[in-house]
């Protein structure tokens, strides 16, 4: 038996009045991967997430979660969700809040009593178990929201901006939790603006704009892929520069400075050797990875989707 995909959407569409929020979203997220969902503001990310969770009904298109139609509310038994604005019933204490949501997952009383303290411990809120959420900081709310999303040991967890309110310690916590989920074989769907976070945690990312997938990239290829190199050397004669064309089609020389793009790290020593053999003094040779941010700008553009 083949394992069904974690998320499968086909031609998902949502129109609010005359405003097309999501135009045509076709996306597959495999089991066990940490998937980043990126795009400029207003790209339809949150609308898409809300459709997956049944908060918004799609205008057209199909959605399957863990192999089951997303219309079936029972599938949410195996899904965890942290909403974007983490607004919760703030007159409940942290413990009561988790107990309430565990009950909504229909967890047995005995399991709830065991699981709630464990999760409070995990997100570092054991000390605040009896405190009402009203007095919680933004970061604490995000932590309790995260604990809520982990109650049912989900097979698929959807996090809408999970680290936006968190300090560096909190972000590391989220990262560790995501790693733990992945080790357990769970799928994580991460909607985030914080590209550096996505870069560290995700296996693959989808770039979306105007509710359409522009590109899906594996972050593994981002690590292994193309890099640009900055060189400071003297003297850079036209012949020397021309000779670099066997490694790179994209070479720019300006005085003692040289910029070239290489297909991978493997060519770096050869370029260095070539320069030295040509009698050039190399002062520095700095490879620069294409960051996720560069890729984002490249794919999505700088207009922010407006």
């Amino acid at each position, binding site marked *: 038996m083949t394992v069904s995909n974690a998320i499968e959407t086909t031609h998902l569409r949502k129109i*609010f009045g005359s405003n097309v929020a999501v135009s045509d979203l076709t996306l597959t997220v495999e089991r066990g991967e940490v998937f980043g969902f990126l795009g400029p503001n207003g790209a339809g990310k949150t609308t898409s997430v*809300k459709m997956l*969770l*049944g*908060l*918004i*009904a799609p205008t057209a298109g199909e959605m399957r979660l863990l192999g089951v139609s997303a219309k079936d*509310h*029972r*599938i*949410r*038994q195996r*899904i965890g*969700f942290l*909403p974007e*604005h983490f*607004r*919760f*019933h703030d*007159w*409940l204490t942290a413990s009561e809040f988790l107990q*309430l*949501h565990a*009950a*909504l*997952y*229909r*967890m*047995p*009383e005995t399991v709830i009593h065991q699981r709630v303290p464990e999760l409070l411990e995990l997100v570092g809120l054991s000390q605040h178990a009896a405190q009402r959420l009203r007095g919680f900081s933004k970061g604490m709310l995000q932590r309790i*929201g995260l604990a*809520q999303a982990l109650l049912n040991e989900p097979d698929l967890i959807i996090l809408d901006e999970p680290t936006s309110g968190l300090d560096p310690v909190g972000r590391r916590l989220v990262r560790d939790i995501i790693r733990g989920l992945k080790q357990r074989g769970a799928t994580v769907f991460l909607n985030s603006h914080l590209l550096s976070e996505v870069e560290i945690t995700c296996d693959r990312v989808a770039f979306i704009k105007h509710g359409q997938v522009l590109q899906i990239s594996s972050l593994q290829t981002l690590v292994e892929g193309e890099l640009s190199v900055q060189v400071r050397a003297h003297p850079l004669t036209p012949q020397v520069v021309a000779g670099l064309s066997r490694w790179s089609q994209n070479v720019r020389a300006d005085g003692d400075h040289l910029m070239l793009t290489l297909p991978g790290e493997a060519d770096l020593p050869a370029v260095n050797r070539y320069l030295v053999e040509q009698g050039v003094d190399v002062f520095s040779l700095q490879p620069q990875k294409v960051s996720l941010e560069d890729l984002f700008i490249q794919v999505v553009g700088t207009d922010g989707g407006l």
Partner: protein
Amino acid sequence: MNIRNATIWVIARLTFREASRRWVLWAAGILGLIFLVVYGIGFYTIHREILKEPPGQLVTKEIYGFMLMAGLYVVNFLTAIMTVLTSVDTLAGEIASGTVHTLVSKPLRRWEIVLGKWLGFAAMMMVYLLLMGGGVIGVVYAISGYMPPHALSGVGLMILGMLLLLSISFLGGATLSTLANGVMVFGLYGIAFIGGWIEQFGAFLNNQSAVNVGIISSLIIPSEAVWKRAAYEMQSSLVRTFGGLSPFSSPSAPSRVMVLYAVIYAAVVLCLAMWRFGKRDL
């Protein structure tokens, strides 16, 4: 399935707990108690006055009946206000703030949330109504020994009136913002109120068109009609026969058909609220 964990039950308990945490229960309870004490002192004073120079058994009974219905009238009005004020925000507010997102993304059907909340409020307001209505009847009985006829069905009808407003407030909350919902429910309540009065005058003056205005307003929202029926049930046969104009008495009682209409009305409106909340984007 474990009944303790049924979604409807969990949500109903949550509603109770919220009211308790937000001091709604305590405020309503304490002020209700003060109301009963004030009412009791007032009734006792008049009772003593009557005992000094008894005006005859029949008249005495009528005075007690009038005093009782005045008390129940206020209880009915207070219950209506409380029902709307406490429930007007429960769906609309959760939708506006986003707290509903964590609830609805759970493995449940949305109507279960609506029904759970409705049951929570219904139980809460029923307790309030029973304590206040029962309190008024009890105070009158304890001081004077007077017991109105058909007290049970009278209070039952008052409960029906409360459930009716609750359902309307839920339908509004599933559709409108909190403020718009409040305006809508009280607006409807006002229509029922004035319609009821016009009907009474019409009946008193034998003017059929005025009576029709009242009937139409009762069809739009039968809350006042239900109160009139409750008052009719609990008043003395003398008032029933000879009538009289006051908000606490009802010479022309809405029929049993109107009561049945109110029951169906409340149920249908509640179902519409569940349907509407199930459909809308959150």
